[in-house]
């Protein structure tokens, strides 16, 4: 079976190369026959990549320790589902997964290509060209089907990093990859639109749903990554501005900017060049982020083995992709005039432009902060440490106006807004925001201006969105519709607008949850059995410590009785584990989670004298990040759900 995978990869490389060639030739010569060859190559390439992926899954399922990759990432002691997850626990496997997803997207784009025959040759050439690179890496640099010499084959493998053996880690990489690779489609179609000189709205419409799809999964991936860090890493937080987190955030920022600015092109025919540039930037950042983390260019918990050649090849590929796209964009610049000019600074389109600049500013900050340590290493000969404080300090002042715009933007009319209209619509939200700011400043001055501003702006935006819903519902109610039916009709008839509002609500909740960190507290305590530690009305009583003897790890857990204002709530059992095979310790926190706050308890150690050293974090509002994340995803699904079109959208 593994031989099958081995040969499937090689064959897929040939097919991808032939298909790329056919697609490019078809584009140059305008040949329908060659375009058909390229389309068939897409399908065949997908079939072969699927075969290779299935072969590797089979190798993990049957624990084929002849394969060096399986031997290095799986172990008999691992639960079956984690054995499967081990497939993407290392470099070769994650490359194969990436490659398979690319091939799957390329195949999924076939209907869109049939609708846009002019773009099909170039799009398929670019998609298959991407596959060539990954297939070449898989065949010649990092082969998942490489066999160990017979003498080196052992009866058990090395196992997967224990921190990755967590339910969230089963799906987080999948979501992230689904998102990152998904941006290859808008990229390929954008390039094809440039090459075929068909940069109207057709390619945008064709790839809009794909873009939303990729964006949705990237968002889920980022959220799950934060959740995993919170539940497993035991340092009390969910986001540390680690390079790998930044690597997934950067394309997200670019894609979010694109999803907004694309509306300006659809409605007003402006920003064509900018939209193409954003599409190019998004996918380049997807590749770039994968490169910097996977090649070990920047230090990260996610860096795989650092092989020079891998980094050099990947850098070359990123440069080539970006060079091709932006080179063609520059060549085509003279033909890409905007249909209209901006008419007023106070207009929806101007709001979108400011939105885009703010997103770009965030992107620039994250980019700089991620790469600066490496740059300073090259230029000054030593690496600098950039802490989360730097990122927080710089991104917050940019994120706040962006949040404000979330509320204001949708209220401003296209082309030119009248002051009277704005006053009428902004009065209530403005009042709510001001009241929230004043109330919070009096009630919680210790939160600091940044958190208070976030919550106040959040209140402003929520009321503004509620007003939008209320106005639309009232209008429908006047026509005699009941509220339930009116809401359903609203969401159905104008799913983009009202789905977008739900996404905005989600974002507001996420940022309000993040702002809760301004009030977090922590406490280090060493207590004996029977003693207790108190924090914010909670009392943790240390009952006993017990050894844990699981199959692949051991250690101790502390049993702590949790009381709130004297009433018993629960028993918390934070653990200190050591994974046998890897000799790696891990602190698994115990979390008491409510809507208002999380009590996050880490067992630092059971000391020699039997006392327990605990680190207790009081984390306000963290739950709202996950709740907001849920609303965010729900809204995105609503926007992209393929409802049958009955009426012309307003």
């Amino acid at each position: 079976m593994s031989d099958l995978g081995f040969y499937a990869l090689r064959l897929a490389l040939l097919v991808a190369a032939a298909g790329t060639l056919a697609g490019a030739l078809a584009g140059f010569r305008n040949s329908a026959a060659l375009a058909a060859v390229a389309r068939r190559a897409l399908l065949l390439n997908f079939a072969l990549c699927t075969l290779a992926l299935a072969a590797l899954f089979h190798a993990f399922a049957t624990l084929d320790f002849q394969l060096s990759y399986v031997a290095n990432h799986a172990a008999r002691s691992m639960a079956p589902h984690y054995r499967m997850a081990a497939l993407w626990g290392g470099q070769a496997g994650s490359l194969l997964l990436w490659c398979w997803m690319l091939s799957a997207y390329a195949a999924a784009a076939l209907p869109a290509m049939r609708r846009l025959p002019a773009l099909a040759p170039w799009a398929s050439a670019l998609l298959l060209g991407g596959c060539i690179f990954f297939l070449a890496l898989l065949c010649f640099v990092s082969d998942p089907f490489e066999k160990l010499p017979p003498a080196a084959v052992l009866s058990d493998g090395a196992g997967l990093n224990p921190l990755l053996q967590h339910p969230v880690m089963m799906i987080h990489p999948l979501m992230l990859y689904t998102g990152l690779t998904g941006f290859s489609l808008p990229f390929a179609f954008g390039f094809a639109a440039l090459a075929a000189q068909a940069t109207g709205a057709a390619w945008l419409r064709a790839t809009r749903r794909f873009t939303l799809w990729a964006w949705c999964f990237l968002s889920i991936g980022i959220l799950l990554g934060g959740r995993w860090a919170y539940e497993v890493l035991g340092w009390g937080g969910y986001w540390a501005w680690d390079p790998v987190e930044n690597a997934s955030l950067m394309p997200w920022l670019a894609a979010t900017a694109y999803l907004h600015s694309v509306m300006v092109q659809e409605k007003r025919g402006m920003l064509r060049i900018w939209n193409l540039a954003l599409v190019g930037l998004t996918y380049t950042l997807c590749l770039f982020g994968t490169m910097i983390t996977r090649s070990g260019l920047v230090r990260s918990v996610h860096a795989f083995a650092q092989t020079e050649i891998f980094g050099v090849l990947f850098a070359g590929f990123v440069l080539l992709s970006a060079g091709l796209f932006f080179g063609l964009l520059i060549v085509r610049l003279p033909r890409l005039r905007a249909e209209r000019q901006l008419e007023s600074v106070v207009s929806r389109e101007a709001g979108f432009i400011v939105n885009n600049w703010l997103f770009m500013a965030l992107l620039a900050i994250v980019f700089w902060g991620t790469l600066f340590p490496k740059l300073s290493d090259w230029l000054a000969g030593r690496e600098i440490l950039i802490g989360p404080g730097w990122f927080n300090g710089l991104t917050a002042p940019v994120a706040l106006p962006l949040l404000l715009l979330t509320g204001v933007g949708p209220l401003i009319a296209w082309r030119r807004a009248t002051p009277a209209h704005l006053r009428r619509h902004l009065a209530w939200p403005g009042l709510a925001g001001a009241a929230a700011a004043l109330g919070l400043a009096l009630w919680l001055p210790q939160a600091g201006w940044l958190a208070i501003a976030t919550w106040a702006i959040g209140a402003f935006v929520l009321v503004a969105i509620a007003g939008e819903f209320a106005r639309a519902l009232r209008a429908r109610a006047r026509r005699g519709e009941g509220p339930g039916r009116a809401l359903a009709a609203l969401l159905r008839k104008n799913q983009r607008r009202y789905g977008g509002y739900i996404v905005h609500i989600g974002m507001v909740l996420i940022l309000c949850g993040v702002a809760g960190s301004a009030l977090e507290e922590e406490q280090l305590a060493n207590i004996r059995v029977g003693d207790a530690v108190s924090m914010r009305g909670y009392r943790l009583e240390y009952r006993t410590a017990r050894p844990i003897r699981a199959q692949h790890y051991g250690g101790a857990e502390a049993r702590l009785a949790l009381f709130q204002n004297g009433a018993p709530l629960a028993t918390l059992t934070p653990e200190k584990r050591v994974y046998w095979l890897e000799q790696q310790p891990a602190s698994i926190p115990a979390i008491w989670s409510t809507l208002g706050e999380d009590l996050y308890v880490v067992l630092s150690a059971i000391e020699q004298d039997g006392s327990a050293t605990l680190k207790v974090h009081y984390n306000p509002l963290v739950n709202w990040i996950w709740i907001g994340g849920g609303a965010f995803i729900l809204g995105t699904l609503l926007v992209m759900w393929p409802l049958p079109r009955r009426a012309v959208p307003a």
Partner: protein
Amino acid sequence: MQIAVGAALAAALLGWYGAGLYDSGALAYYQTLEEFRSAGTGRPSRVHGYVAPGSIERDVPGRQVRFLLQGAPPHASAPAKAANALAVAFAGLDVPDLFGPGAEVVVEGRLTAGGAFLANNVLAKCPSKFESAPAGAGAGAGDARAAR
């Protein structure tokens, strides 16, 4: 118009960068143990080194973890080098998971009058466990934070 808005924002952003760069707390080089030894003062510093095996001492009542920091990885250095080690006292008991004998660490704090280094933060780095790293690849990997 677009350009003007962009330029104003870019300028504002540059200002923030400037402010960020001079914010000494968030951004700092770290020194190797030798560099720190030759320039060591009472100023706040970040020093990179390795935990000398057998030197870790948890002082639970005193809320401190004390250890010796040496300049080279333990297996590569002769025992004599340990004489040159820096005595570190971490003000806390919550060392990161990856902290242990021989671990590569960066300690943040300052030298006290007694010649010991009082650390308020210990960052531990571990060799990547994601893939068996080729020889010489060094510590590939992550910072586990234990900030105070």
